[in-house]
């Protein structure tokens, strides 16, 4: 039995109290969730536990079977959202970094323990592969493997599945439960309430640097956590149900017509798809199914080797593309206002003279902040001062200002809090309502249900099913249907018997 107790831990950054006398008791054997709105102190708590920062006051005590542990951080392992691993090294080398068994000779660690850990995590066959060739899910497993080899007692999972597909998330949760069953303390921090329900028996709610709620066993439900979280945060449900009423028909010619398209690196092939104006289309599929790559190809971020992208109208439809990670979409060195206009060209930014017109830019920024519901102090605040959700709105606004016929967005709400999610879905839908098309690559069923009109399911590089969401009652029904499509190809079946449902 391992016990971790925090007693009135405090940490300030200037005037803000990130942790304000936080106390909690954790015991091994269960996965404990930590919920909290943005800025509640979750990441500070994590950094303090992991020893990346020192608390101003208070104590953190870890008691194991052999007594109290001196340097707690040595026994704490963090599994990050973006794994902290070495992309240029093989899986085995990654495990060895910092734990080399000898100073000279062939560098590595005890092969037996490596083998044991890797096969437990199911990634033994990747042993000699370079990390940058592997999927995020595998990279994360490598980080977990590093922690296991270190014999950590406390595992902190920080938004671990925000970029994982449904299937990968399930596998991850299973691993987390295994760790807990092995007598480790496992903490999960995430924005997805559903994940708490799925894998935690106890959820603590963190607000303003303190634990304000502690739910356990039966009490862990999405509603209960949301109630604890929100004083004023709007629930996302309202927006979703209002969409159901407006079951939009697709009218007019398709904006884009894919006909037998094939990826240059073989991620997908034989894709035929029509993008109709006025609709939000979700592409879904596990990592490696080709769904993400298809989204990138539609966004012209990836080359097609064969097939055609045809526009039915005279001109080629214009496309704006937003990558999954904000690292690739936000200009960190620019202000909020500058980010909002960063994608625009001379016509919008310059006056008659042909030089930049600051007044015009400011006006544009001011209007955009309102239109895209960005909560910011001023246009001239640095973009990095905004929460993840608001950054995402800025990025989305900047793309929408371009006025392209199609917007392609990967994981529209990765690392975004509840209230911003609802805003983002509303923005996407209203953009589509203007006769344009929105394509998103999604990993969450909830998100597809909330935001999309239609979902296209991919598996092994091919479209295996299409679902019109106006025919779907609730989330479990959608999840079941999608799982059915994804698994369908695993069974032996005659060619041409692919299920097709819905449109086209």
């Amino acid at each position, binding site marked *: 039995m391992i016990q971790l107790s925090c007693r009135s831990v405090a940490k300030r950054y200037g005037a803000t109290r990130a942790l304000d006398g936080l106390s909690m008791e954790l015991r091994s054997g269960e996965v404990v969730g930590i919920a909290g709105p943005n800025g509640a102190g979750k990441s500070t708590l994590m950094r303090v536990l992991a020893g990346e920062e020192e608390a101003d006051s208070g104590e953190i005590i870890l008691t194991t079977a052999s007594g109290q542990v001196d340097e707690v951080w040595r026994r704490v392992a963090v599994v990050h959202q973006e794994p902290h691993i070495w992309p240029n090294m093989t899986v085995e080398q990654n495990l060895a970094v910092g734990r080399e068994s000898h100073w000279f000779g062939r560098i590595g660690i005890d092969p037996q323990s490596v083998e044991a850990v890797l096969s437990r995590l199911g990634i033994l066959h990747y042993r*000699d592969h370079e990390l940058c060739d592997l999927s995020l899910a595998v990279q994360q497993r490598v980080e977990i493997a590093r922690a296991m080899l270190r014999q950590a007692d406390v595992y902190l999972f920080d938004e671990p599945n925000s970029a994982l597909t449904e299937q990968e998330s399930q596998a991850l949760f299973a691993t987390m439960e295994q760790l807990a069953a092995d007598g480790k303390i496992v903490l999960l921090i995430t924005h997805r309430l559903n994940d708490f329900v799925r894998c935690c028996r106890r959820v603590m709610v963190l607000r303003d640097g303190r634990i304000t709620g502690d739910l356990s066993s039966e009490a862990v439900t999405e509603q209960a956590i949301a109630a604890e979280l929100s004083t004023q945060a709007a629930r996302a449900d309202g927006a979703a149900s209002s969409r159901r009423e407006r079951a939009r028909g697709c009218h007019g010619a398709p904006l884009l017509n894919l006909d037998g398209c094939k990826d240059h690196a073989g991620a997908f092939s034989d894709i035929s798809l029509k993008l109709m104006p006025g609709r939000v289309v979700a592409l879904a599929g596990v990592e*490696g199914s080709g769904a993400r790559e298809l989204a990138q190809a539609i966004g012209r971020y990836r080359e097609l080797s064969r097939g055609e992208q045809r526009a039915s109208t005279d001109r080629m439809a214009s496309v704006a593309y937003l990558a999954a990670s904000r690292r690739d979409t936000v200009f960190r060195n620019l202000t909020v206002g500058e980010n909002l206009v960063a994608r625009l060209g001379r016509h919008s930014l310059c006056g008659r003279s042909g030089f930049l017109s600051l007044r015009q830019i400011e006006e544009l920024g001011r209007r955009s902040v309102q239109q895209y519901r960005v909560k910011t102090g001023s246009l001239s605040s640095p973009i990095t001062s905004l929460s993840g959700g608001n950054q995402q709105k800025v990025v989305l606004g900047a793309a929408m200002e371009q006025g392209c016929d199609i917007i392609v967005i990967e994981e529209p709400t990765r690392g975004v809090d509840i209230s911003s999610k609802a805003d983002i879905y509303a923005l996407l839908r209203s953009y589509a309502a203007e006769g344009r098309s929105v394509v998103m690559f999604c990993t969450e069923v909830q998100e597809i249900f909330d935001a999309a009109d239609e979902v296209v399911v991919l598996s092994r590089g091919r479209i295996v099913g299409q679902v019109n969401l106006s025919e779907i009652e609730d989330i479990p029904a959608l999840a079941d249907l999608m799982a059915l499509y994804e698994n369908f190809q695993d069974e032996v079946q005659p060619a041409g018997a692919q299920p097709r449902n819905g449109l086209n």
Partner: protein
Amino acid sequence: MRQSLSVLLGKQKVLTSLRTIGLALAILLIAAIVYSQRAAFLTPENLLTLARSMVALGIVAFAQMLVILLGEIDLSVGAIYTLAGTVTATLWLGGGNLPFTTALLPALLAGLGVALVAGFLNGFLTVKAGLPSFIATLGVLNATDGLSLMVSNATTFTPAYNEPLPPEWELAFFHNLGGALLPWNIPVEVLWLVAAFIVFWVLRHRTVFGFRLVAMGGNPEAAVVARLPLRKYKYAVFMLSGLMAGLAGILDFSYVGSIGPMQSSSLSFQVIAAVVIGGASLTGGRGTIVGTLLGVILLALLNNGLALLGVSSFVQLLFIGLVTIGAVWLDLISQKLIRSAGQRAARLGSEGNA
């Protein structure tokens, strides 16, 4: 069959050796072309000249590769190369701007010492002051060049004809450092290159030091989280790079038999070109000693081959520039192919295991 081939292609070792083989083939091709035009290319004399011309470039490039492995760069090596030789010469032979002279051994130590100090300065400016290493070492390059001229007063030193003549044994010892000829007319300097190759290969591929350099260069942030001694290692590689530049300078001084004022940034850029041609990534985390050696051979071969073919030295320079660009471009393309092969293998592997 396709399955097993692509599983094989996923392995890092296979992928990197494919690239090394490519570079080696390019070298053989160039050698074959030169040989077909000028049979003198394969004579022992020419091959020895070729090997000798690789010494300074190679010794400095091995250490530079470690710096680049960490994602930093050291532009100052060319100037340190000159400074070490100049300081040694001035202290030993007199005639420069220094008020005193010493015996040979202290002078040699002082030469290596200033090289080490210059390397330390590079480390200090990069680690402690936080300057980008490109700027820090560019500054040290110029400052060191200036210092060399100040110390030597732009004198040309020739030990064998110096006034007063150094003791016999000192002259012999100094000549034996790099200039003396072994059986079959092999210059001693070539042995230094072989030794440096072995030492650096072990350092890069068979010590924790080299292993961690790769990790730190690949993802410095993760290295900090894993509490690897990043700052110490940065100091270490800069000092090693400075020391090797100094050593190369002294060895060349010994081989040539004299040293005069020179502007030496060209060595810096040749060294960096060799490392990059050898497949190291300027963003850090990738690079091997064998690759670097091949890069050095390629550059030396081009110089030698073009000279044999009677191409004018102006055209040689132009040609070497183009080859450097071409080699790195080719490397980028092959890197891309390799990554997509690796990713495909990973995907097949996951399906095969599902």
